[in-house]
């Protein structure tokens, strides 16, 4: 069987110093499957231009590859597009700030609109047969809100989520954030939760993406027929 490709996208502005990267790296390192390749993209190390919201000018203007990527050779969003399209499992990690995911995660979501729009407007299924997962870290609360918001977008983009598709941890809801890393590093159960999330996503990918009896790879394609489809054939 060919290798399952696992991609992590870490979206904290603190990059490799962040708790969310620490737990993603720990979880990925813990996976010992022989038929697994692993990569983590640290978004804060890339030059990512914000979305210019071409969609709002005209939905047909938002295309894949994104116009920013086509126009600006310094924009490195292509690494994230290519990474996702080349992977079987994509796990995003984000910190929580004031109840929401990180600004980098939001930038990436807005830029990934071109992948979602490929289906909903251009009727091209670009993202298919890929498993998703989320790792969410915060000091106070808000992880269910973050999970809900991100899973809403990522399923629209085309990712498939297994049961219990996110791992989360939040701190003590005080101002002593410097204790968080110590709690995480010494928290056996915390580590197990994040390793379990990554392992579960990979196990699900193996179960769903490749037929164990026939060896055929899943090739399921869903073209959106949402009621808010713009019918350009009849548009005036």
């Amino acid at each position, binding site marked *: 069987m060919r290798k399952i490709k696992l991609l992590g996208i870490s979206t904290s502005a603190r990059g490799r110093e962040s708790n969310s990267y620490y737990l993603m790296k720990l979880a990925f390192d813990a996976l010992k499957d022989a038929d697994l390749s692993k990569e983590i993209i640290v978004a804060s190390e890339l030059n990512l231009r914000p979305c210019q919201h071409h969609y709002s000018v005209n939905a*047909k*203007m938002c295309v894949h590859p994104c*116009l920013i990527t*086509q*126009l600006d050779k310094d924009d490195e969003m292509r690494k994230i597009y290519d990474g996702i399209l080349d992977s079987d499992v994509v796990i995003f990690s984000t910190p929580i700030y004031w109840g929401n995911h990180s600004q980098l995660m939001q930038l990436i979501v807005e830029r990934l609109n071109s992948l979602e729009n490929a289906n909903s407007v251009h009727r091209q299924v670009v993202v298919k047969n890929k498993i998703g997962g989320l790792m969410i870290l915060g000091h106070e609360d808000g992880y269910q809100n973050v999970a809900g918001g991100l899973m809403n977008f990522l399923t629209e983009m085309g990712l498939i989520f297994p049961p219990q598709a996110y791992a989360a941890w939040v701190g003590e809801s005080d101002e002593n954030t410097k204790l968080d890393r110590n709690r995480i590093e010494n928290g056996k159960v915390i580590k197990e939760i994040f390793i379990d999330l990554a392992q579960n996503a990979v196990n699900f990918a193996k179960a769903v993406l490749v037929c164990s009896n026939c060896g055929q790879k899943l090739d399921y394609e869903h073209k959106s027929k949402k009621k808010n489809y713009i019918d350009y054939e009849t548009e005036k």
Partner: protein
Amino acid sequence: MKPKNSAENFGKCFCIDCPLYTNCNKNKAERIFCARTTSECVMDGKKSCLCPAGCPVYLENKLSGAYFCLIELK
């Protein structure tokens, strides 16, 4: 599919009102890039392209994308 490189489309084209359009484009009589090819001039891709914002050539030919002065329509 590329729109027809015709005098009619040349007349309908919105390019001359576009924020990206420069004197260089004007001097070279460059327009309807969607029907021809990309510009020979230096143009600022960070400005907002006007093609999808109502150009009749774009709408009538059911085009997708934008910035045909910088990205060739295939």
